[in-house]
């Protein structure tokens, strides 16, 4: 990953002598040590643990491919993988159009911006545990909002029906994250050169035409950034689902992260749980790489054209 696009400057020899060896690498050591201890080693460790059997308390014993066979032969795995991908795709499809619309709107002039901004981001500040608890009460068919208002449409067994429970999870996720993504799009829209719009106006383009011919293409890389965050982030929805539905009803919301927790910390099967974790890592890496390929190399060329 050539993260550092800035070419190395040839410094005069005197300066090189001063910094060679030097203090710079040492500055990175504390962060590196912590990240290796609790990030890299566990990553390798999870692969190792997937070839063992461990109940979380006693001895860890090598067990070869037993856990792998158990998990890969378990229809529950395919189901969890399917639910995970479904959550990812559906939440992306719900959030992205709404976030783009909101972002475009927020980037324009409007009154009440300050008020809007303060209120918009409140959901992002709440912990997922708190949100899940509040929604559980809110959606209660007997005592929740629907019952209180007497609106029959809202009186559903929201968390007891598979399809409804899944929809609730998507809704709550969108409720929390759309504001954040609309902020990203707002930043992207503001970087689009004004001259493009002026040229389009001279050609007589209307608002809709301008949106589809200028705004959307110019937002390409913003869309990739935002989508990457959404997609990789969706792999980490744990707190919310754990508190809201605990994976139910009938495993309709049992995503991989939850599956891992349940196998490992509730059923004391750390080996199979580690297999799930490895699969989760692979899915995350594959997605990140895929999105980077889409991202291309020179992410800002288009943004600078005609500026």
């Amino acid at each position: 990953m050539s993260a550092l696009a800035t070419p190395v400057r040839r410094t005069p020899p005197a300066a090189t002598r001063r910094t060679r060896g030097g203090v710079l690498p040492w500055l990175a050591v504390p962060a590196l040590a912590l990240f290796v201890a609790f990030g890299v080693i566990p990553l390798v460790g999870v692969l190792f643990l997937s070839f063992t059997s461990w109940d979380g308390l006693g001895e860890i014993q090598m067990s070869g491919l037993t856990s792998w066979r158990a998990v890969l032969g378990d229809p529950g795995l395919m189901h969890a993988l399917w639910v995970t991908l479904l959550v990812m795709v559906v939440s992306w499809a719900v959030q992205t159009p709404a976030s783009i619309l909101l972002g475009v709107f927020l980037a324009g002039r409007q009154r009440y911006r300050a008020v809007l901004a303060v209120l918009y981001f409140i959901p992002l500040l709440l912990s997922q545990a708190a949100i899940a608890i509040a929604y559980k009460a809110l959606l209660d068919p007997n005592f929740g909002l629907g019952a209180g208002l007497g609106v029959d449409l809202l009186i559903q067994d929201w968390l007891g029906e598979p399809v409804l429970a899944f929809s609730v999870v998507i809704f709550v996720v969108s409720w929390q994250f759309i504001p954040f993504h609309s902020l990203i799009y707002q930043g992207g829209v503001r970087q689009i050169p004004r001259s493009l719009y002026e040229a389009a106006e001279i050609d007589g383009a209307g608002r809709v035409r301008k949106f589809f011919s200028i705004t959307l293409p110019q937002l390409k890389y913003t869309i990739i950034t935002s989508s990457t965050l959404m997609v990789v982030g969706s792999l980490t929805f744990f707190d919310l689902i754990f508190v809201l539905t605990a994976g139910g009803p009938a495993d309709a919301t049992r995503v991989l992260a939850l599956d891992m927790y349940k196998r490992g910390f509730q059923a004391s099967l750390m080996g199979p749980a580690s297999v799930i974790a490895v699969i989760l890592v692979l899915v995350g890496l594959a997605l990140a790489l895929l999105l980077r390929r889409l991202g291309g190399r020179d992410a800002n060329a288009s943004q600078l054209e005609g500026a």
Partner: protein
Amino acid sequence: MSLTHTTKLRRAETLESEPHGHRRRRRRRRRPGSDGPNWLGGAVSWLWLAIVIVPIYWIFITSFKAQSSYYATNPLAPPTEPTLDNYRLVVESDFPLYFLNSLIVTVGAVVPAVAVSFMAAYAIVRGGGRRFLRGVNSLFLMGLAIPLQATIIPVFLIIIRLRLYDSLLGLVLPSIAFAIPLSVLILANFIRDVPKELFESMRLDGAGEIATLWRLALPLTMPAVVTVTIYNALTIWNGFLLPLVLTQSPDKRTLPLALWSFQGQYSVNVPAVLASVVLTTIPILAMYVIGRRQLLSGLTAGFSK
């Protein structure tokens, strides 16, 4: 979270510069091309605002209702006889202790996390030619692409072996590690924007790297440091999985975990549960009101480049 490609992006123009295309110039219309107000966008955003606000409003007003009246009144109507009993119940049930635990873990993790991330980001930007630092940077970028929840089982094992299970320090260490990749990325993006000439002149004045970091890079990137601090504080304050897996005793609970068990205990007393939700959110709201500008502009610059 993976933002790998954002690092390759253009050396950013200064953030918070005047937004392009934001102020529409009032040119004299030559043709009917200038649009009126954006009705669709406006409608969507007001609708969304309603969707956001109604649950929050409901949480807030319900927390002041007596349990007896909760089932009897219209849920969206303000309480006829507001009561603080729910809050009293929450405060008397060990919440101050959980609050303190959350505070210790958050401060204890965020301060070191931002400090070590800043040093690493500085080293990566200034010593970008060295193979070691390039490797470090790639490692952190890889960390962004991996859902760190997936490492929870080995983290649990390591914390047990370090004899830190069920201690606040056992929560702090992994929290720091998980915060590092994104913090380094954002901070490096900002340090890269400091004009090269300033570093040159510091060096000509004979300042070492530490002095340069402290007297030049840090003051100039303060907004980014604040952003990263707030962002990490938010993430760690709201963290649920680490306390769930790494602690056991009630007196080591942090707020999100306490909320969850409180909810299990008082599930019939919805107003009290919601009062606990409100109480745990107040400190974050306070922080947000203070640092809102900083956070939003910093995140925009960090992600929308």
